[in-house]
């Protein structure tokens, strides 16, 4: 049902994207001449640490990735654009729930990053061969499920936390008429509490959900590993399923109706609270899946991955158009590609700055975001 996604909006999105990319290119070429004395080192680091936020982990992987990056026939720009698209897809998975929650309830959920971390931590908990334990319980045990089973279990448990949160926290606050800013502050508190809880439970170390080392194959100008290929397939399939749900199912259309106008949805006989409960479960599950796939793609994860991702998720959702269900997808792809390609010229430490620059640029051109619509009044 591309009719409704409005081709013009997509064309506009592409134009904005090209403009943004050119701007980044311009800025970064200026920047790269400035650090011309160490170009090789800079690009090598940029290449490998594209999506790894912390410096200590990138060091560990430089050895693995360096050989890959230097393999003959690999085009750096193509590889980075490709990495960006992959990262964008995973970011979209993680942030689509953020957008759905914002759309249906108006809440900017700062604890969404922890939902992403939780997914990755749970997958580690179920899959690892190391002994694990539950908070406050004295005994240790090994679960060691196969990855697919661990991932499913993690997503189910994470979805349960979405249900739990809405059942015992957010629905109560809504019923009491607590204002959005107050709710947002609660979510910031929840974010910090969950972050500490995860660290206390799982520890501060970098963890590997899967210990298998990814074989990379040369596909045209890029290198592609099996796990990455599977991750791409899964994220595309899931995002299509979400789109199908929103556009083609009655419940999905009701979700969009609640996003549009909750009071009218109630007046139409839609059980708004039930829809919002469903959105929370979906959002938490999708965030968990995003966290798991990202842990595989990055070949490692940590209790605070989500917290580091939160800004990029907000940027993606805002860029795409706040509350627009497909905005999160478009915004994520733009952010992913821009962030990854910018590391060709700029240091990886600047990737948040690049994301922010793109966000501001796009908002100046299109204040309502790429897919956002300025509704006519009256």
């Amino acid at each position, binding site marked *: 049902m591309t009719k409704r996604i409005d081709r013009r909006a997509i064309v506009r999105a592409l134009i904005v994207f090209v403009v943004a990319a050119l701007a980044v290119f311009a800025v970064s070429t200026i920047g790269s001449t400035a650090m011309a004395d160490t170009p090789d080192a800079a690009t090598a680091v940029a290449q490998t640490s594209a999506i790894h936020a912390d410096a200590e982990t990138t060091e560990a992987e430089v050895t693995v990735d360096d050989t890959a990056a230097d393999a003959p026939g690999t085009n750096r720009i193509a590889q980075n654009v490709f990495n960006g698209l992959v990262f964008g897809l995973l970011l979209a998975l993680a942030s689509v729930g953020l957008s759905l929650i914002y759309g249906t309830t108006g809440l900017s959920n700062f604890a969404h990053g922890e939902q992403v971390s939780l997914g990755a931590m749970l997958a580690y908990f179920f899959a690892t061969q190391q002994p694990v334990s539950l908070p406050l319980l004295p005994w240790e045990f090994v679960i060691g499920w196969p990855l697919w089973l661990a991932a499913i279990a993690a997503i189910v448990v994470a979805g349960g936390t979405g249900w739990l949160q809405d059942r015992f926290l957010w629905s109560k606050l809504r019923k009491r008429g607590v204002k959005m800013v107050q709710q947002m502050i609660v979510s910031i508190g929840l974010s910090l509490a969950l972050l500490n809880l995860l660290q206390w439970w799982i520890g501060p170390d970098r963890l590997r959900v899967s210990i298998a080392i990814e074989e990379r194959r040369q596909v045209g100008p890029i290198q592609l590993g099996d796990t990455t290929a599977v991750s791409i397939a899964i994220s595309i399939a899931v995002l299509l399923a979400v789109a199908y749900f929103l556009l083609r199912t009655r419940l999905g*259309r*009701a979700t969009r*109706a609640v*996003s*549009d106008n909750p009071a009218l949805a109630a*007046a139409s*006989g839609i059980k708004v609270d039930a829809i919002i409960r469903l959105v929370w479960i979906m959002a938490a599950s999708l965030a968990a899946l995003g966290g798991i796939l990202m842990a595989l793609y990055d070949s490692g994860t940590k209790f605070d991955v989500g917290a580091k991702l939160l800004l990029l998720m907000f940027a993606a959702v805002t860029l795409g158009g706040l509350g627009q269900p497909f905005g999160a997808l478009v915004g994520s792809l733009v952010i992913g590609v821009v962030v990854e390609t910018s590391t060709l010229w700029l240091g990886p430490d600047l990737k948040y700055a690049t994301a922010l620059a793109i966000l501001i640029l796009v908002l100046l051109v299109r204040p309502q975001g790429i897919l956002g619509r300025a509704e006519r009044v*009256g």
Partner: protein
Amino acid sequence: MATAEPILIADDIIAGYLPGVDILNGCSMEVAEGELIGIIGPNGAGKSTFLKALFGLVPIREGTVTLGGQDITNKRADELVRMGVGFVPQTNNVFPSLTIRENLEMGAFQASKGFQKQFDKIMDLFPDLASRHHQRAGSLSGGERQMVAMARALMMDPSVLLLDEPSAGLSPVRQDETFVRTREINKTGVTVIMVEQNARRCLQICDRGYVLDQGTSAYTATGQELLKDPKVIELYLGTLGA
């Protein structure tokens, strides 16, 4: 008409948005089956609040509402929809990012089975909308939106329809169309309670009018009587004559 069984009775309603602030202080209304009721009154009198209170969107603190003998005070909106009450709010009464067809689908959310048949039936009432049912409601003009809003509320075949200023913001021709259509819908057996700014036009077509002032239903009479009432003329109609 007035001799028919009352279908909806509101008895001394006290209601408001914020704790301790009553917007309605003692609103009463008795509506017979098949009647077309017009509610007029100055801005801020609480007309919209009254409709919202009937529909369970504003908490009622005292008083009762009964529908067909059943107590519906403070019932949830989705339950009222199931019981045959339809409501068209004054503003924001469509889903802008949904198509016309999807808007109507949401109107029939609780009875999705016979959707297509019902959709065709309602579209016969609004031929202007039928040909463009894939258009987003957000791109429609004010008058068209009003039509979508009314069509949405009719999807569940309500026995009582609450309309909040359906003619507001429309051109005179469109306003007339709205009144005629409201009368037609009423003739099919739907009891209609309509709030209107256009007091004269409203009183001309309705069976009975209520005057609401400062949160109280001041008085009621047939539309024709109210049109001739010197006090109503002075306060709400402005001038004598047509």
